[in-house]
Structure formats: C-alpha cells, structure tokens
C-alpha cells in the first residue's frame, strides 16, 4: 500500500521537517537481516521490509501523537533505539520506523540509587554518570553500547553483574509507556505522581502486562522513560582505562580483583557456582572468554590484549608451550570480579574464594593473573564494551543452545552439546573450529543466583552462502538436541516463531497454529487478550506470541 502524503504531513507536523524522512537512502538503512541477532542469515538473504518513513520523536508527547496517527490510519510502527537486533525493525510494508535517538536524558537520584533514563541513554553513558556518585548498573550481554532502557523493558537483560544486581526485569522501577493504542501508562508510584521509586501496583502490577521473562520487543507500544535501580560501585568516579586500541585495560585500584577460576570437571565447576549463588561474594561473574572456543581462548586472549597481534598469529600461539599449558588449565572456567567495600571485606572475599577452590579442587588461572590480562578482563566484565569481538573470528556469529534452568542441569548435557558442535566444526566447514565447547554466559540469569546462560558462540562467514546455510543446518541439529532434553527453543530459534525468514510478520492464524500446541496454551491466549487491551489494532508486529482464545474452546 502506498503511503499517502497526508499521513507523512501529519507525522511531519508532530516531529518537524528535520526529524522525518522518506528518502530511500535513509529508509534503506533501517532494514535488517531477519534473525535473532544481526548476522544469522547473512546479507545475501532476506531483509526486513522497507519502512515508508522514519520518524525521530523528541518527547513522550511526540511519540504519543505518532502512535495516534498510526492508529488512525492503521500504520504498523516499531520503535527502536540502538538497533542491535531484528526485533527493533518493522515486519510489514505499510509501516514506519520510530527511531528514539533524540530521547537520551539521564538523571540520577544517588541517595535512593535510581537512574531515570530515556531510550537512547546507552548503558555506557548511564554507567559513566552512575560511577561519578559511587553507583553502577546491570549491563546485559548485549553490551554497553545498547540502550539501558530497551534492555530492561523489551528483552531479557542478564549479564556478568546480574548475580549481584539482578537482571533487567528485576531492576525496573517506574516506567512511562505509550501503549499501542496511544494512551500513556505510568506504572507504580509514577502514575500518581509520587515519584519513580516503585514500579509495582497499585494492586496487581500493570508492568506485568508489558514485561515478562523477556520483554514484548516493542509489540505493546513504546517505552519512553524508565527508572532503573542502580547498585553500589566502590571504585573510582571515572573509568581509569589505559592501553592501546583495541586492547584497553583498566585498573580500579587494589579493592578490585578479577579471577579466572578453573575446575577439574563440570561437577566441581557446578559446585563452585552453587557456592557463589549462596553467598554475596561476587560482584560480576561470567564464563566469558570461552566465546572464542575452549581450544583457542588462551591464544585469543593473548591476541586481544596485544595491539600488535592479529588473528593470523593464532597458529604460532597455539604452538607456544606456555599458551598450550594455560589453555589446557582453563578449559572449564569462568571469570569473576570481586569488589572490596573495605580491606576486611576484600580479605574475606579472597579467603572465601580460596575456600571454595579448596572444596572443589579448583584453581586460579595463572595467565589471567598477569597484569595485562587481569586489567583487560576486569574492564571487559565491568564495561561489556567489546561487542566487536563477537564478530572477530569470521565476521558473523550466532549464539546457540541458550538458557538452562540451573547449573546442575547444564552440566549433565554440556559435554554432549560440545561434542555435537565439535562434530560440525570437524565434518563441515561452515562454522569455525574453536574446540566444540564455546559456552559462555552469566553465572546467574537472576539476582542472587539461579537460571544460567550457556550460549555457544558459533562463528561463521555471513558473506559466504555455504557457511550461512551450513550454520542454519547446525542450528537445526541443535534444536533436535534441545528437543531431546526438553530445553525448549535453541537460542537461535527463540524468534523463529515471530517473524518469517523473509522478514515479514506472522499472521494470527499462523500464531494460533503454533502456540495452541504448547504445554500451557492459555498463557498465549492471555497475551492475546493483553494485546487487545493495550494495542487493540495490533500495529506493532508479531513479536507478542498469541493464541486467539476462541481456538482453545
């Protein structure tokens, strides 16, 4: 359907000439490869549809007026901020893209440990402001260059700090939300003008309509402002980085330590994680550098901490006896950061770690205690500013397998999963051979300890169709593995039920067919009813999984 001029004019009247465009060159940049992350199918395959226009509102009122216009004319809309993944992009032809980059304010209430942020306040900015007053925030795996608000409101949002700070969902306080129908909902204490400090109630929490295990990915409206709970930062007020690009490092002072803890077997690994779940020792915890594969991680760490080294140095490094030895020792590992709030606090935490290692037969990686390595890993886990490394191996990556309800469940199957990946690495040339096990993820997906991530980084060449298609087949194999052990969808298949491979939305009938067969289909019927209540014209794509309740009668 063509986009009538009067609609463009109406939108232009809201945001002004400078903040709207239907220029083909501009609109083309708001298309994405249809996958969960940004590189799964490769650029030679399908793309998301071309928006009719791109609008850049500067305030909640402007967003509300845009949504009202969309409702009047039946235009699909999708708001996004830092555009990390496909879920921020439209899925239909008669649609506009809302780009929220003009809304980027950050206010900090230091006493009550609250940040009030707009959509384009990226996590790095919020962190920098927070650190000035001794505070920090949960930065999820997507990294510090992504929107802090979008992470919390619209997707999952767990990362290294989650164990001590809680996940994105757990840190949400008051929210301001332009619902799909055009009304503005302010949740919790914000709704009655009492402040941003509480996001729940009055009575049952309306935020439950908008944010579950993961967010609604922009399918219930546009979150325009949010209060996020902050957490203590007993470090310097600025980020004392040093080193040469891209091998930045940081020294936060003697009260911060970063260790790579290693174990002789998965059982010991899990027992140690349980200790950390049951204590308040850890500030950050992640199995991080296995993202490069457990056969390559020591060599890769040497490369990424040395600006003079390149990927072509891998073969030589793999022959280095010290690297070989260190790599062997850190196969079953994870990284932790401890932060001492005092000398005694740090001493206790150090001793507690020693005790855990003693109980589990674990050890600290020597290589990771080297000053360069230590400071690099410390910066990495604290900032999560190295998303470029996701792509460094072959230009594209995908995270497969995914979430496990707990570490004990994970360790029962992790070696079998690693062997499955290794088989593909060896027998096919479509994915990089990094050692099978490339499981990385947060020590906990929720505050205090619980569900864990075990995302197998799979590196492929997005510009090579064979590599892309081979990777897809590998993921199909992983899904069979997931089915065998009742793990649900593989990470790469999480969004295969909300957008066709060609980038277009699913129809309601297609969703009815998919979700009526789930173990508890009424959950999706309720989501249908919720969508009817908050986005009655269903103008924000098909990310909200729904079943028409009539189909369950």
């Amino acid at each position, binding site marked *: 359907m063509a986009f009538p001029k009067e609609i463009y004019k109406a939108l232009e009247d809201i945001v002004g000439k400078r903040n709207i465009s239907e220029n083909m060159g501009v609109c083309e940049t708001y298309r994405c490869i249809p996958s969960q992350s940004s590189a799964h199918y490769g650029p030679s395959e399908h793309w998301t549809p071309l928006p009719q226009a791109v609008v850049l509102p500067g305030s909640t009122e402007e967003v509300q007026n845009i949504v009202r216009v969309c409702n009047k004319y039946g235009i699909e809309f999708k708001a996004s901020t830092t555009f990390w993944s496909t879920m921020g992009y439209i899925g239909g032809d008669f649609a506009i893209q809302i780009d929220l980059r003009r809304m980027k304010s950050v206010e900090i209430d230091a006493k009550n440990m609250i940040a009030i942020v707009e959509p384009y306040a990226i996590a790095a900015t919020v962190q920098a402001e927070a650190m000035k007053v001794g505070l920090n925030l949960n930065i999820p795996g997507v990294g510090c260059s992504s929107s802090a608000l979008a992470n919390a409101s619209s997707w999952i949002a767990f990362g290294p700090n989650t164990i001590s700070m809680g996940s994105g969902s757990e840190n949400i306080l008051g929210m301001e939300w332009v619902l799909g129908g055009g*009304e503005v909902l302010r949740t919790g204490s914000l709704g009655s003008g009492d402040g941003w400090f509480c996001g729940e109630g*009055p009575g049952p929490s309306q935020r439950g309509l*908008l944010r579950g295990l993961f967010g609604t990915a922009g399918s219930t409206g546009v979150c325009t402002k949010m209060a996020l709970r902050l957490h203590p930062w007993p470090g310097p007020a600025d980020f004392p980085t040093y080193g040469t690009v891209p091998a930045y490092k940081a020294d936060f002072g003697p009260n911060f330590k970063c260790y790579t803890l290693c174990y002789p077997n998965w059982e010991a690994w899990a027992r140690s994680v349980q200790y950390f779940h049951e204590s308040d020792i850890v500030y950050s915890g992640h199995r991080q550098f296995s993202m490069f594969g457990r056969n390559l991680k020591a060599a890769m760490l040497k490369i990424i901490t040395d600006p003079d080294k390149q990927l072509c140095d891998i073969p030589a490094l793999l022959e280095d006896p010290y690297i070989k030895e260190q790599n062997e020792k850190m196969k079953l590992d994870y990284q932790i950061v401890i932060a001492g709030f*005092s000398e*005694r606090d740090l001493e*206790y935490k150090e001793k507690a770690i020693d005790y855990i290692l003693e109980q589990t037969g674990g050890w600290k990686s020597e290589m990771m205690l080297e000053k360069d390595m230590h400071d690099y890993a410390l910066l990495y886990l604290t900032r999560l500013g190295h998303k470029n490394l996701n792509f460094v191996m072959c230009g594209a990556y995908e995270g497969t397998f995914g979430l496990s309800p707990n570490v004990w469940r994970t360790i029962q199957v992790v070696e079998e999963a690693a062997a499955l990946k290794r088989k593909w690495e060896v027998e096919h040339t479509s994915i990089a051979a990094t050692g099978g096990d490339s499981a990385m993820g947060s020590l906990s997906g929720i505050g205090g300890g619980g569900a864990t991530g075990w995302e197998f980084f799979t590196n492929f060449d997005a510009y090579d169709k064979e590599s892309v298609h081979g990777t897809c087949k590998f993921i199909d194999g992983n899904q069979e593995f997931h089915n065998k052990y009742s793990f649900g969808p593989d990470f790469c298949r999480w969004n295969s039920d909300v957008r066709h491979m060609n980038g277009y939305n699913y129809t309601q009938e297609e969703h009815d067919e998919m979700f009526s067969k789930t173990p508890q289909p009424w959950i999706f019927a309720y989501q249908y009813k*919720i969508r009817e209540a908050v986005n009655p014209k269903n103008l924000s794509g098909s990310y909200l999984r729904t079943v028409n309740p009539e189909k369950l009668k």
Partner: protein
Amino acid sequence: METIYEKLCAIFGSENVSDAPATLEAFSKDESFATPMRPFFVVKPENAKQVQALVRLANETKTPLVPVSSGAPHFKGDTVPSVPESIIVDLSGMNKIISINRQQRMAIIEPGVTYGQLQEALAKEGMTLSTPLRPKATKSVLTSLLEIEPRLNCLHQFNYTEPLRCVEVTFGDGNQIFTGAAGNGPQDLQKQWELGNWQVHSNGPAMTDMLRMVTQAQGSMGIVTWASLRCELLPTIKKMFLAPAKKSTDLEDFVYKAIWARIGDKLFVMNKAYLASLMGETAEEIAGLKEIMPNWVAAIGISGDILLPEMKVSAQEYDIKEYAKQTGVQLLPKVPGATGDEVLEKSITPSGEAYWKQTAKGAFQDIFFITTLDRTSKFIEAMYSLAITAGYPTEDIGIYIQPQHMGTSVHLEFSLPYNPENAKEAKKVKELYITASREMSKLGGFYARPYDIWSTIQLNKDAQTYEILKKMKNIFDPNNIMNTGKLTLK
C-alpha cells in the same frame, strides 16, 4: 434444580461446606474498620481441582468468591466480603509443604502453610525463609508473599516479589496455569522436576508476567494453590546491633550507607512506641519500655552461614561500626529495654496466639505506604500534627521504616493502637485513619497495596492506571467474581 449448596457439596463434600451462623459471622468482619458483610457459605478446598471447579461454578452463577488463606484474626479488610452472596474460600486446610530442595534452595508450599510450620521444616535442611516483621502465628506464608509484605532483608530483594517465584493460579475465568519458569513446561510439578526444572525463575513464563497479575491483588484476580519460594541458608552465626537516635533523620545517612555497602541481612528503623510494642509481652511492659527506650532505633543484623562465617561476621561488624561512626551514630549491642539479639529473635519469630500489635491496647489500625527514606520525615511530621489535631496521643504512634527492593524505596508504617471497648477512642482512631490516609497520599505516599479506603484514595490519583486495572480485571476475571468490590473506586 440443584441449589448452590448442593453444587458446592458436590465439589467439596458436605463436611467442607458451611453455612453455620457462627462460621459466617466469623468471616463477616475483621479487626479493621471495614464494613461487615456476612457471606453465604464458607468452603474449604483440599486441592487445586476443587478450586478450579468452584471458580467455574462461580462464573456460571455469578457468585463472588473471597479467598482467605491465613487464620484469624485479620486486619486489613481484604478478607471481608464487599458484596452480598459471597462465598469464602478458606484455603487454610491446604497446608502441605509440597517439596523442599536444598540444592536449589527452593520450597513449594500450599496456601495454608504458616511461617512457624515452614521455618521448622526448612531448618532441618539448613535453610530458612526471609520473613516480614514478626508475622502472626496463623499468617499464611503464601498470602504474605502474594501481598508483598515487606521483608526484613531488603538486600536480597532482587525482584520486588522476592522470595516468591512461581505459582499455580486459577484465574477468575476458570483457567489454571503455572507462572514463571513453571509455565514453560508441562502442567505437572513431578514431570517438571524430572526435567530438572525447580520453578526457580519468577518472570514470565513468556513476554508478560503472570505472577504480577496476582500479587498485591487481594485475591481479586485468581486463587493461588501452590507457590515456589527461594530460601536462604540458615545462619550459623547471627548478631544484631542497634543504633539509637533522637530523630529519625539522624539515622538516614547510616541506613543509606549500610544499604550501599550491602551490609545487613536485617535492616529496619522503628520509633520507641513501635519497638516497645514489638518487645513487650504485656500492656504494662510496653508502657514501661516506652519510658526508657530511645526515641528511634535502627536495627541491623549480620550473619554468616557456611562460608567462613566467623570471618564474614567479624569483617562486617568492623565495617558497619566504622560506617556508623562516619555517619554520626553509635552502634550498640543493646539499648535501654532491649538487646540486639532480643530484637532479632522477636523480629523473625512468629507472634504468639495474640498478635503482638494488639497487646498494647487490644486493637490497632495501621496506615502504610511506599516512599523513599529521605522523604519519611515529612510524613512523620504530618502524622504527628494530624494526631495532635485529632486528640490522639502522639507518643502512642508506632512508626516502622522498612527498606525494600534493595533500598530504592521504604515501607513506612504508622500503627495506631486503641482500646476497641472504648467507642469514643475507636471513633477517634477511625477518623484519624481516614484523615491521615488522605493526607499521606497528598504528600506523595504511594499505596502500592491499596486496602480498604486506600483503594479509592490511590486510584483517584491515577485515572490511567485505574483504566488499565479494569482492563486487567476484565481479562482474568471477566465476570468479576474474585473478591468483588476490592481495588475499585467507591
């Protein structure tokens, strides 16, 4: 044609359906100022299937249902029917502890399980559950959690709903689901356990949060028949220190510092009337304690469990005393009238048969809401001023400040004891309760749990929220049978 009584007997058996006048009378009122209303029947379900059958029957007959899990006495008006012809769903008989899993630190309980019962069972496994301040003996753990009663350990309140994780709920439309991580698998706990899913994660199960549809809802959305709870390790060493102060504001910096430094598995502030009431066993003792206790006390508990407990407690004790010095307060093992250890034990131990807040004068009326610590003093000043105007003795007002959600907000509670036998005094307190509730709201107090008159006060401030609440109600309880009349404007 079958009568409703016969239909209820078909579901529950006649022994679990009562219309005995004394039983109906008991459920027609509580200890608050809520308007009494006699129910039609009281039913006692034994399982979730019966609950679902009841809800379906109620939808057919448009019969209001009032779920009640805690035993008497009740204090907030939420268990008193607001409309005639209601059926009380007394869940106190569903009191099984379904499972305890030490490895996952999870327990699954039915609605009738009390704190005393659960803590005893958990202790055998080396665990405990965070508690609200000295819960009443008959308090349902599940109700306390669904209603988000403030917990003593705000630093482990990662999620606002901690330590509540997953539930089985029959919504008002008769559909039954599992929430959170439990919603992703088969609707059978045993089968989920076999798959290694221990109902740990509370969010979801999908893109909306079904648990939050039933929290703070006063039973107005559905009936919960089990809940999974995240437990803590049982401390092997525990200590509590007390910081006395003349004014509440003298303690603010210390409390903020303790929260920032993540010290304190228990942390709260009380005035002397509240602390005396908590500690005194008789009215006379309470009166005596009020004479000698400091005006205000901040209580902070530290503990160690299995991981070098002595070293942890020693380090935290040293640090918290340093922070106390830095913020101008003295941290002591005791204050006149109470030691820290005594305060700790009282705080976490369920009340005796008589609820402790009734000891001073026989009855009490609470006013509580959410705010931030730095705003509490303006509410306190206003409350004293209103009490003076109303002729209520300011020295009797108990004040409790409980940090929550890792310290981003606090539960501020005013407790007004009175003699229920003295009609004049009761009337005075009722009037003060109404006036002060309105005034606190005007000053920015947020009634997250809007019981009784607070529902109208809070929702009148926020039209959009009320509109969404009505939509939520229509989704999950389209025939408005669940605790009809609650969470509405009057």
